[in-house]
């Protein structure tokens, strides 16, 4: 269904108006939301990189024009960052991340979840329930890792909706050898079982190829990350968030090419000493609950308040693409184990018992990207991020790093209070910076 088909366009001659069906209404809501956010991203900022147009168009095509991203391939839905893309690609399918950011979907999803639960989980469920998302119809199977309680429990809800759900067991402790072994078994089993869904066996050669392809994508992302270290900041964080969001569903190779083009442009900008933000604009590290299109509320607010996000520590962007697989011997066993390690050991998801890695990572990002402060977003109801807030705040304080903790959800309201906080934070960073200078 495209925008043109919406019954909102009344046939004035006949003077009849068809009342929208539930599905049409939902599609319209989603399109409106997507359009509005895209508008904000594109039009409220000047000097957007030209090569970002690809990504703007991708989102518009997907959510406004309802174009399916993958026509010819089987789609495997994934619920979290821990599901290895490489293996799914090697089995001849395409992984699509089912994490969703639509308020409209969250409203639908509220039916299935307690009131005080996480917006992201609600929205993801809502998306699956309404089934209007262009890739929902094609999903062969949804792989649901046992990360946080809410995601874990949604497995049964999704099953009730009629989806084929694969529970992938993730250990809650990642430091222990038992945890590592447990997860490796999960991944090995997954690799083997995928054949039943896709009909294609994961072979040594294919897996090696897909590791290469994903690595290539990661490399182009990394290149941009390196460039973002430049002062002044050559690109705004909202664009990078949008681009990495496209990794959720886009064709891997096309995405990589687009990222390469973006990288080229940013490189030129760095050479030109182009400044995407103001001269004294504070540089922000974003962390916490993932901003997923179109819920880019907080990143947009930050950058509208004259700060620039230079790096992030979220599972929709940096955590998704940062760590790469390295293999010593290109055998299936070694590759699968290597993939398992990469998705478990380096993961800074707060579901794990300890969050030491995340603390170190944030401090390091702060140093590496020459940042001025950290913004910590937590979706109301996301217990793990809410819980970790204290320990992260403590570590950051020990290191003299200012942090703003924001509890939020997908609702478009409360922006007045949020923007006050963000602006106040940015102002305090500015005055701090002034003083340090």
């Amino acid at each position, binding site marked *: 269904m495209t925008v043109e088909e919406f019954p909102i366009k009344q046939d004035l001659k006949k003077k009849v108006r068809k009342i929208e069906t539930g599905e049409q209404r939902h599609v319209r809501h989603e399109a409106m939301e997507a359009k509005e956010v895209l508008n904000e991203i594109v039009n409220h900022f000047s000097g957007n990189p030209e090569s970002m147009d690809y990504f703007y168009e991708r989102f518009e095509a997907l959510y406004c024009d309802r174009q399916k991203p993958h026509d010819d391939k089987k789609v495997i839905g994934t619920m979290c960052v821990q599901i290895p893309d490489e293996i799914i690609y090697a089995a001849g399918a395409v992984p699509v991340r089912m994490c969703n950011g639509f308020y409209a979907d969250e409203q639908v999803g509220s039916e299935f979840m307690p009131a005080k639960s996480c917006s992201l989980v609600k929205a993801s469920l809502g998306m699956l329930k309404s089934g209007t998302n262009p890739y929902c119809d094609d999903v062969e199977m949804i792989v649901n890792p046992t990360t946080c309680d809410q995601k874990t429990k949604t497995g049964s809800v999704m099953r009730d909706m009629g989806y084929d759900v694969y529970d992938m067991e993730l250990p809650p402790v990642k430091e222990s050898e038992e945890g590592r072994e447990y997860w490796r078994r999960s991944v090995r089993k997954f690799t083997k079982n995928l054949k039943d869904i896709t009909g294609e066996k994961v072979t040594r050669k294919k897996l090696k190829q897909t590791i290469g392809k994903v690595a290539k994508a990661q490399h182009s992302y990394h290149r941009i990350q390196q460039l973002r270290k430049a002062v002044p900041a050559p690109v705004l964080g909202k664009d990078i968030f949008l681009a990495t969001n496209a990794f959720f569903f886009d064709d891997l190779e096309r995405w990589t090419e687009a990222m390469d083009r973006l990288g080229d442009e940013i490189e030129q900008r760095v050479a030109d000493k182009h400044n995407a933000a103001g001269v004294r604009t504070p540089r922000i590290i974003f962390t916490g609950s993932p901003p997923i299109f179109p819920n880019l509320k907080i990143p947009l607010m930050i950058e509208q308040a004259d700060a620039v996000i230079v790096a992030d520590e979220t599972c929709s962007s940096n955590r998704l693409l940062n760590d790469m697989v390295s293999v010593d011997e290109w055998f299936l066993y070694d590759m699968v184990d290597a993939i398992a390690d990469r998705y478990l050991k380096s993961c800074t998801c707060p579901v794990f018992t300890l969050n030491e890695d995340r603390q170190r990572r944030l401090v390091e990002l702060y140093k590496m990207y020459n940042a001025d402060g950290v913004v910590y977003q937590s979706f109301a109801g996301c217990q793990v991020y809410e819980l970790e807030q204290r320990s992260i705040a403590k570590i950051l304080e020990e290191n003299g790093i*200012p942090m703003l903790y924001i509890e939020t959800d997908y609702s478009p309201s409360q922006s*007045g209070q949020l923007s*006050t906080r963000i*602006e*106040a*934070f940015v102002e*305090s960073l500015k005055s701090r910076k002034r*003083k340090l200078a």
Partner: protein
Amino acid sequence: MNYYAGIDIGSTAIKLVVIDEEQNLLGSKVAATGALVEKNSMEAYNDLLKDVGLKESDISYLTTTGYGRKLISSADETISEITANALGAKRMGAEFGTVRTIINIGGQDTKAISLDEHGTVVNFAMNDRCAAGTGRFLDMAARNLEISVEQLGEFHFNAKGTPAAVNATCAVFAESEIIGLLGGGHSREEIVAGVHFSIAKRTIRLTKRVGIKDVLYFDGGPALNKGLVAAIEDELGKELAIPKTPQVTTAYGAAIQGLEVHTFEISEAREQA
């Protein structure tokens, strides 16, 4: 002589301040916000200018803050109320010592701000979405008990029995809870004291998130309520620093910000010249 004005447009009231370049307070004014924010603000602004004997053109820099800060088209600069509050408190609280922590209870929010020794914001915390424990809650309570807001302090100190335990600190539910307490035989004084203590507890919890150091500065409209001040001091076991005009601290800070930015611009222009 340059003059600077600051307007703090809150959810309930508009606060205005005019200062000179020595940061001396020339005059201040408080008006209701209403729905036509810009119109009401500009009227109050003109009134104030008339009071202090200045023309609009005498004001070098007009800085706005508060929720409605972006609604004033003639503003030279907008800053967030937290930064403004910190600036104002640093100046106004100077008589008590170095202000390191600020509690601000406004019409619909409560803020706690911690400053470093130079008066820069180190950390701050705000109440979440609901209006529990804010000025609005006091308004509701006073209305339900059929007393004026100004009388709250008096009632607080007249409470003879144990303060009533007020649990639901939600402004919306306050009404039903207070009626329930009245029905339960509590006197109005006890209820007022109970309300104060519950707000005090909530405020202190928020303040602890940013840390309580040295001089604890309390401003915002409710700071005029001696009963609430006493309740917070009792709960905290520490004396609060209350300015003479606690309502206008934030507007005062906004004016100071205007002064600083203006001075900075002048010096920059001079350097360039």
